[in-house]
């Protein structure tokens, strides 16, 4: 009797947690389903009509969609690269060095996370417009905006990892004839790397997904979220769901693959 109670107690949380996960995946399931929807006979993009593989056969059919996806990937990769580099350097500075103004900088770096996107986007727009850059909004201004909001997330993520790093390890390396540079590349970097990787992953997803800030600073450049916004006004082509599904599966495969690989590495 008491045992049964314990069993339920143990598994109730898991069941509830699973329900929350299900909630998180409902829309994704719908996206996957809709990627097989044939709505060529209807203007209604909010209902499943007939099953078709056509969307998957020709995902780039809707004009401008795939180029928007590519542009988004391009921007996200660049933004991730820049933000990860700058953010990682800054994290090292903040965790490993004491200097005047450190705490001010620390909170300044937090501020972009405390700024609503609409504020951050519009303030950048205000800057670009008053600086006479209004006409040149596009790829570069999007990139600038994305780096700015990714930076804080990178710093927070890498800092956490760095804080957890045992400084003894670096000292052990120096004790074992590694000079500063070698210590960094052979010990510090490999150990912080998972944190950097996580930060980069987060950056990429935030950048790839951003709409609000991008929309304000994009000029005539169309990213994938902007494309989706645009077509949502005139009827979303079902291929958008193909892209959503592919992105999802791709990221899952990458992360899970990496996870399994590292697990296998750990096992041998």
């Amino acid at each position, binding site marked *: 009797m008491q045992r049964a109670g314990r069993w339920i107690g143990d598994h109730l949380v898991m069941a509830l947690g699973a329900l929350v996960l299900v909630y998180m995946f409902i829309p994704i399931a719908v996206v996957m389903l809709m990627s097989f929807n044939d709505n060529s006979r209807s203007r209604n993009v909010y209902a499943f009509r007939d099953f078709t593989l056509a969307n998957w056969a020709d995902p780039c059919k809707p004009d401008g969609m795939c180029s928007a996806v590519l542009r988004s990937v391009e921007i996200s990769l660049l933004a991730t690269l820049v933000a990860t580099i700058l953010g990682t350097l800054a994290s090292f500075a903040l965790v490993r060095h004491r200097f005047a103004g450190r705490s001010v900088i620390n909170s300044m770096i937090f501020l972009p996370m405390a700024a609503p996107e609409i504020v951050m986007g519009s303030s950048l727009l205000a800057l670009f417009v008053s600086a006479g850059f209004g006409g040149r909004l596009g790829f570069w201004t999007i990139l600038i905006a994305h780096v700015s909001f990714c930076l804080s997330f990178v710093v927070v993520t890498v800092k956490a990892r760095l804080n957890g790093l*045992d400084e*003894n390890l670096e000292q052990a390396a*120096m*004790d*074992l*004839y590694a000079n500063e540079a070698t210590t960094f590349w052979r010990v510090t970097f490999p*150990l912080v790397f998972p944190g950097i990787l996580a930060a980069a992953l987060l950056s990429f997803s935030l950048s790839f997904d951003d709409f609000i800030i991008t929309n304000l600073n994009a000029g005539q450049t169309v990213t994938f979220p902007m494309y989706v916004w645009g077509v949502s006004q005139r009827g979303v082509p079902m291929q958008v769901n193909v892209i959503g599904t592919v992105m999802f599966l791709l990221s899952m495969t990458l992360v899970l693959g990496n996870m399994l690989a590292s697990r296998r590495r*750990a096992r041998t």
Partner: protein
Amino acid sequence: MSLAADSSRSLRLTALTKEFSTFTAVDSLDLTVPAGTFFALLGPSGCGKTTTLRMVAGLEVPTSGAIHLGDDDITYTKPYRRPVNTVFQNYALFPHLDIAENIAFGLRRRKVREVDAQVAEMLALVELESQADKRPAMLSGGQQQRVALARALINRPEVLLLDEPLGALDLKLRRAMQIEIKRIQTEVGLTFVHVTHDQEEAMTMADTIAVMNAGVIEQMGSPSELYENPRTTFVANFLGQSNLIPGTVSSAGSDVVKVDMHGTQVSIPAARAHVTSGSGWVGIRPEKVLLAPEGEPLDAPGNHMHGAVITDVSFFGVSTQYVVRMPWGQQLVAFEQNTGIRGVLPQGTRVDVSWRPEFAFLLPSSQDVNAGAVQGAR
């Protein structure tokens, strides 16, 4: 392997000082560690042991003073340029490298060839051949400890520093590792500087022990020298236990110093008398204190003190600890090996107490009688 080319060089610390903002962790320390010895640095928590070792390793820059290795001044040499290696307390193994690569780390940095053969040799020395491909996290504490040792030893440093390398191990494992480390030191013949809290560890392993307190060396010498003839109450209490009884010097000759101790005259060899006039502490180790039920013979040529009572008896297995109250009210501790010759004396037994005068020592009364003693113990 030029590093250990001249292995006859001793490590010398001269007036070595380290201040942390306002706090002096190491205070003008002088110390010479002869090459090839197993040297133990013993002292209470916070006395500056780790700081001293870190300065020797180059991980901390001294505030003043110098560190020499033979004729070389290495005071400010970068850690990676010193022929000194450290075994860290928490091992500090590289979690991202396997055991073999952890051990090979130092050789690789020095671009040594034929790393593999040496690593294999080291793995054999620490008996971890089968674990070469594992990551440190997969090893037990004792195994990790041995990897840390191998990783440092493979470089054949002139000096190997061990900062409480056994602190995190449980007692049984600790004893086993002590034997292991001692075996390895004997085999490789390098200078080991070993920091520990554990006196028994220091006494069984080291050729020389230095007892450190509050940033300075209190006393240095062979284990038996330190144990038998402590020069301060701190050493007397910290290294083993001591009974310290107040007394007054009645006469000081060149051979013996005579002390009046609550009416009993005791003679202390001059070499063990660190006071020659006025009052002092007469020290005697518990195992030197002999007890016998009142009136029974006592195998000691010194004075017998009568009228003592056993107030506490603890069975330790190997020996029994008696606490006896002397006529003047002081409690003394006596150990008696459970040889079985005589059964255990019950609490309350009236006993005679004696010890051979040549084992007593005399310390200045200005020193704190409780310095270095176990807190909370009587």
